[in-house]
């Protein structure tokens, strides 16, 4: 089994095919979209592939250490950042192919006009703990 992170972006991803902002959909289209996301997560829970899913607020700040005895420096909101993460789902699947298949399915969530959004999702494999049997037999 291998874990994958599926990342959804507020911005930074290439534009989706069905590119209409959510507040310009009909209320029913919004409900249908949310239902699709619930059903997708529920299905993965049933197949034993769901690990976690969370959404992030669009606003946050950059923070860094500013030396001994000084409060951290903060900056933000992320006005100039190109990339802004909206949320994630972590899955635990048998293969890379399966991860790609599921991301494709998630990207098909319906949007305006009830048609798939074709949203670009970022799929990133986890760097897991090394296997008990070393990959290199001489290692």
């Amino acid at each position: 089994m291998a874990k994958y992170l599926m990342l959804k972006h507020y911005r930074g991803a290439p534009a989706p095919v069905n590119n209409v902002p959510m507040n310009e959909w009909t209320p029913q289209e919004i409900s249908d979209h949310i239902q699709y996301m619930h059903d997708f997560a529920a299905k993965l829970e049933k197949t034993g592939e769901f690990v976690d899913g969370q959404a992030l607020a669009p606003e946050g700040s950059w923070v860094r250490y500013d030396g001994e005895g000084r409060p951290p420096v903060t900056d933000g909101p992320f006005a100039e950042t190109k990339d802004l993460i909206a949320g994630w789902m972590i899955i635990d699947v048998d293969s890379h192919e399966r991860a790609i298949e599921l991301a494709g399915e998630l990207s098909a969530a319906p949007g305006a006009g009830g048609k798939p959004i074709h949203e670009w999702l970022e799929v990133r494999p986890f760097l897991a703990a090394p296997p008990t049997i070393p990959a290199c037999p001489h290692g």
Partner: protein
Amino acid sequence: MNEGRLRSLTPSVLAILVRRGADFAAAEDAVQDALVEAIRVWPSDPPRDPKGWLVTVAWRRFLDATRSEVARRRREELIEDEPAPGPTSALDDTLQLYFLCAHPSLTPSSAVALTLRAVGGLTTRQIAAAYLVPEATMAQRISRAKRTVSDVRLDQPGDVATVLRVLYLVFNEGYSGDVDLAVEAIRLTRQLAAVIDHPEVAGLLALMLLHHARRAARTAPDGSLVPLAEQDRARWDTAAIADGVQILQAALARDRLGEFQAQAAIAALHADATGAAETDWVQIVEWYDELVRLTDSPVVRLNRAVAVGEADGPRAGLAAFATLDPALPRYAAVAAYLHERDGDLPTAARLYAEAAHRAPNLAERDHLTRQAARLNARGVAEVRE
């Protein structure tokens, strides 16, 4: 005996162990073990005296746990130092534990966790599941909390207000895992009300009951939020409402008004209305005036502006709203609502979208996005006609 009844014995059993000389942290672990054992054994072999059984088993566990050489020496000292039998404190045992677990030296999250375990009798696993953190994390939080209060003497009276804040936090956490924290908060507040006569304890209990009564009607089958005005009032729990109103009336009759009683009074006025249109908004505004006087909170002023909008019209609401700080939580949502009521739909739609952007949770974000979508869809329809 159901689990709730069993857990209601937790604080007095714990207090007995502490009075016998066990330190709080070890006693709390021992009581926790005894509760787990009780859940295992009692269904097939119920004890005649549940509390006596718990005390015996917990004390044995405590002794087992302290059986090392160092501990034995300490135990011998304890026996020598054991205080004379008889009343050791004027304060009720259960009440002392509430004060200890809400001690001001604890952070809010630690106070909540310790209260749920030492007063509520929940297991660490249940508390962890309810707060969606790993069990090991919650175990650490609880043991740190116990260390923090280890030097606090149990016979010192505490501040009821700190206890109420902890119970309020538990209630607001809602529901996840196999423990319903809202129900647990109501149980703990009711138990507190039984050992201390304080109108604000009654006020908080009434507030919880009145909000809990509406819970089933607050979400649609698809999980979306249903605003108060659109709720199916037939789904409200009338028994809980009657209970809450009665508790509140008794508290208000004592003429020592506080924040929770005033909040409960507002909830009671909503519960009392047969429909949204029948709501007594004028009286609700008066209660908000009391709340402003008691708390001087900007959040209260924001909610008051909504009530003024209902009582005296959206223009009056917008006027009450005008002086508030735009950085307040839900500022844009309130602005959107008042502008919609005032007939300015494009402004309302824009503000709903902004409010969705700033929403503190997903359910609210989805709700606000739907509000924006509803107004935008109507705008498109009007242009097309």
